[in-house]
């Protein structure tokens, strides 16, 4: 940071103090450019690519991104579904409104928003952080250099299977999340004693539109790309030792959450 001389004018001091702020847009732009470049280079698949090598890597990533995430995603969305129903019962205590509207409220909330967003936030931590830590460690321990030195396109080899696994498995996780959330909502509705599970499902079916599921699937696909690609970018470009890996991991989780929110808004604005 530039330190102005003590006799500098107030304007000069303010200007010097704000200098780091002016660098932020430039840094963001540079980072976005580097991210786009990495993705372009990664998906420019080599002609001598061995499908078997990538397929094995993709299968491993699909298990790690998708199958291994089912318990935590189920847990998170189960509680979300339960909370939505409890809050709906609390807010809709109006004799003029039918009790089945609780089911409608839960269905809309879970299919359109919670099923994807809660899943995405959970996976920013679980999947994004893991990918960034893994690639960051490979970077600082020269394993990425070793891949390059062998004559392998390390970007394609490391990034493509992880991003593809995210894009393919996030919609699956969304289906699991939405199902668990809705079922848990029904259980909580029954346990509340205010409405029966049949009334809950009637309300859920009343305003159900298949497009809501389509919207959720598209959003989860977008979130899958955003989370895994950002994690690959931060991990692949990690610098230094353990500290660098830590920073890359934190950036993956934070940037992933921030860009998921942007993507959430963009999807809603474009598709609803």
């Amino acid at each position: 940071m530039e330190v102005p001389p003590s006799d500098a004018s107030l304007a000069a001091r303010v200007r010097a103090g704000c200098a780091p702020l002016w660098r932020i847009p430039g840094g963001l732009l540079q980072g976005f450019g580097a991210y786009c470049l990495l993705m372009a280079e990664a998906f420019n698949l080599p002609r001598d690519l061995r499908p078997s090598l990538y397929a094995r890597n993709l299968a491993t990533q699909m298990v790690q991104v998708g199958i291994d995430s089912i318990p935590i995603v189920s847990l998170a969305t189960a509680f979300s579904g339960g909370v939505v129903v409890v809050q709906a019962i609390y807010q809709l205590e109006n004799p003029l409104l039918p009790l089945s509207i609780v089911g409608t409220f839960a269905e809309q909330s879970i299919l359109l928003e919670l099923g994807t967003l809660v899943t995405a936030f959970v996976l920013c931590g679980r999947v994004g952080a893991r990918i960034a830590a893994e690639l960051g460690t490979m970077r600082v321990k020269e394993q990425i250099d070793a891949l390059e030195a062998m004559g392998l396109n390390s970007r394609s080899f490391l990034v493509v299977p992880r991003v593809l696994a995210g894009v393919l498995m996030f919609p699956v996780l969304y289906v699991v999340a939405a199902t668990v959330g809705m079922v848990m909502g029904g259980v909580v509705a029954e346990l509340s004693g205010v409405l029966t599970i049949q009334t809950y499902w009637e309300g859920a079916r009343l305003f159900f539109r298949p497009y809501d599921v389509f919207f959720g699937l598209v959003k989860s696909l977008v979130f899958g790309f955003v989370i895994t690609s950002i994690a690959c970018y931060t991990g692949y470009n990690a610098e230094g030792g353990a500290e660098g890996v830590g920073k890359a991991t934190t950036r993956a989780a934070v940037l992933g959450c921030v860009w998921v929110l942007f993507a959430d808004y963009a999807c809603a604005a474009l598709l609803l």
Partner: protein
Amino acid sequence: MIQIRDLSKSFGGNAVLRNVDLDVPEGEVTCVIGRSGSGKSVLMRHIVGLLEPDSGRVIVDGAPLDELTYSELRQVRRKFGVLFQGGALFDSMSARDNVEFPLRTFTDLTPNEIRQRADECLELVELPDAGPKKPAELSGGQQKRVALARAIAIEPKYILYDEPTSGLDPETSNTIDELIHRLGTTMGTTSVVVTHDMHSVLSIADRIAFVHEGTIPWTGTVDDLHRAESETLLAFVRANEYKIGVPSETA
């Protein structure tokens, strides 16, 4: 043949290599010696194109690396085996999988042939039983030997070694030295060994390049080393405390 011409590289204004010239003749072992931080490893990374020079060029078998597309560069890199200082083994794979990885990736060998070749390589580095172990279960020296097995698995034309004997016990160091020498004599492999272990240098070097403060002020054979007059080189050699007949200040 590897030729390095007028190569310079800086990091953040700190000049690490300055107008370096070096020829690596085929079938010989060229040892690049010098103090820690003198730029030896940076020079090695330029040879395989992992770093881009600020100026100058590296030419491998007549192909200037700076003029190649990424795809062509990857083809050139397949002529190399590289032993990194820390081994750079893939943590998620067993030692055997690490050795088999380049064979599966770049050759058309059958699974049986791959397994056989991996066994041969692990035996060459005297670790025949290390196959099922993960890198974390191996000592630093063992990791380095597995990494060496991986580097030689596809029988590359060139092998680059970054500090191959550092952290190894003297007996294992001798084994590695013998292996480097044998690869050169029996298979005609060209080796570039970055090291500051003068014992290794005297055992294996056909040519020596001395890196000092980003330049190469001296190159020659082991015999030439005995007659060298460069004070910085002699100071480096004397620091290794080997009686190799170099003139000392007190002589």
